[in-house]
């Protein structure tokens, strides 16, 4: 279908006046990007303290938020919260959590594909975005599927990783050595409004989302 490609591009070029060969694309793109840098308009929402706004927005979007002093307290928090559930909880840990060598005694951790009831995911976010109470996870740190297959998703986020606006998150992403296959933004639990426009929490993804903000990682 090379022909379709060139016919489509020709029709576009008739309007844009562009002429590019394979070698000039990058340079032309960069030149254009340079000449067009504009200051983004960000939403006016009285954002002075990113942590406070992050918590407020996350809650408004249906996430539960807890504050912990240090990483060590994560497993205790899980123990305390799993106690209230009727089914036995299996914990699916993201690699970046396993690396932290926390005390998992008494908790049932597993590497199996999460199957509905009783599956909790525990992952660490790369960045938190205050603007919308969103957490960002990268597929080179945490398998993307894990974020969606569990019943309850517990996202650990270091206080220092919380930024104000989306642009700040992009800067952190550009600082990574390479872009992962998947960048996931998650804001609260999964939901649908497809039946009579009634919002129903818990669609195909997690039914519950907890953010644990860690003061000193």
């Amino acid at each position, binding site marked *: *279908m090379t022909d*379709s*490609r060139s016919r*489509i*591009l020709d*029709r*576009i*070029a*008739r309007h*844009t006046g*562009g002429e*590019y060969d*394979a070698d000039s*694309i*990058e340079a032309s*793109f960069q030149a*254009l*990007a340079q000449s067009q840098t504009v200051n*983004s*308009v960000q*939403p*006016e*929402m009285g954002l002075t303290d990113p942590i406070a706004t992050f918590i407020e927005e996350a809650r408004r*979007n249906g996430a539960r938020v807890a504050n912990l002093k240090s990483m060590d307290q994560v497993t205790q928090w899980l123990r305390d919260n799993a106690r209230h559930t009727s089914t036995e909880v299996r914990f699916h840990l*993201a*690699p970046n959590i396993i690396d932290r060598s926390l005390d998992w005694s008494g908790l049932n951790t597993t590497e199996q594909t999460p199957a509905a009831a009783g599956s909790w995911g525990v992952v660490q976010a790369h960045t938190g975005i205050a603007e*919308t109470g969103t957490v960002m996870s990268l597929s*080179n*740190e945490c*398998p*993307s599927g894990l*974020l969606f297959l569990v019943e309850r998703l517990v996202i650990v986020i270091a206080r220092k990783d919380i930024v104000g606006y*989306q*642009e700040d998150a*992009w800067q952190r*992403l550009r600082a990574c050595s*390479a*872009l*992962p*296959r*998947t*960048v*996931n*933004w998650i*804001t*609260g*639990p*999964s*939901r*649908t*409004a*497809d*039946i*009579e*426009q009634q919002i*129903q929490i*818990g*669609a*195909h*993804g997690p039914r519950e989302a907890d953010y644990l903000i860690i003061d000193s990682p």
Partner: protein
Amino acid sequence: MSQVQIQETQPDFIIRSRAALEDNHLQEALEKAGSGFVYKRQAATERIGNFEQLRDQARRVRARALQHLDLYLLHFEKKVQQAGGQVHWAETPAQMRELVIGLCQEQNAKTATKGKSMVGEEVDLNEALEAAGVEPQETDLGEYVLQLAHERPSHIVAPALHKTKAQVQSLFRDNHALGERALDEVADIVNEARAVIRDRFLQADVGITGANMLIAETGTAAIVTNEGNGDLTATLPRTHIITTSIDKIVPTWEDASAILRVLGRSATGQDITTYTSFFTGARSQRDKDGPDQFHIVLLDNRRSELLGSEYEEMLHCIRCGACMNHCPVYQAVGGHSYNSVYPGPMGAVLTPLLRNEEQDNQLPNASTFCGRCESVCPVRIPLPGLMRKLRDREQREAKHANASTLAVKLFCRLSRHPALYRKLTQFSLKLVSMVRGQKPRFKKLPLMSDWTQHRDFPAPDKGSFQSQWQQRQKGKK
């Protein structure tokens, strides 16, 4: 799953809309959806101080993207390739179907899970996949319901908006082994669908999704969802195929933000949807999961011809659905009356441009030009203005003028001569006042039965304003 059969619809908006007005299920569903979207959008836009500026910014981003569309597409393609993916180009719906089927067959795919893709709907992908022996499995709840019902979406954001809960319950009863379970609550329906679809995610050979944006800078496709089905479709199978169109390009990640900041707020009144996902190429060695194969199929289908035309602004559209949520015509007759995957005001412009069938001429006419759509469109597309241009086009290309066009022309010719106009109107008013007697209004009027079928018409005064004014001026002198 049985063969998809879409009922043949009448090729006439008037007939379809009349039927829609009498369809009680549809009317019940429309009423339930009601003004919900309107209030949610309003609350979301009022929560921040500068939504109008965010709209301006989004519009600028869209205009900039189109201004150098070829460069951005080329850069996008190069980056996708560098990230281990491939870009395919389809001029027509037929080509897109062929390309996608080819990709599925290369993988010996038997099943394909699907996330919501309006471009997929535009090219009738499901029917083609089935015919080629690949079972399409819709995973978005609304789309899944429609697949069971063998129906088309009636809204670009809420595809099953036209279905009532009771209708969904009965569809599930007919298609699922429910046993004793009644599915009384919305939660029960959602859980049932979740359970049935979960296995499909894990077993599908191919996942097909749409894309909300293509970021040229890095060759990244962005997808915005709430249910999580889009991500499970994109991530779990070996192959991820994206069906989308060339106009979805934005230059940079910052530009993507500009769109995201107006998209959710305009669509569902969310400042951001639950999931916003950015896919760049195939899984690399560093990635913990993801598909081994990644393909993006780009559809043109006449979009490139709109560039530089008087309709170019329609390519700014980010498919938020706000225009139909605020459209009193859409609210009255629902999306199927438009007989197109793109209903409401945006569809009334886009359908005649992309499909351009005889019946599509009706769509830009079926508007009062109330302008509510334009007033909420996040990228400020002048939808009534574009519909007006399409009305001009229809008249220009019309082989013969119909009665109403002739009437309009006659009226205009008369109006060009105010003196003659005054005499003639005065004469007709005299005639009317002779027949009207003392009646304050009419219940029937010759030549105006379309009006008097539904409402009365007031009896005019004895003389026109102009003649009475003349009298008065004479009296003054």
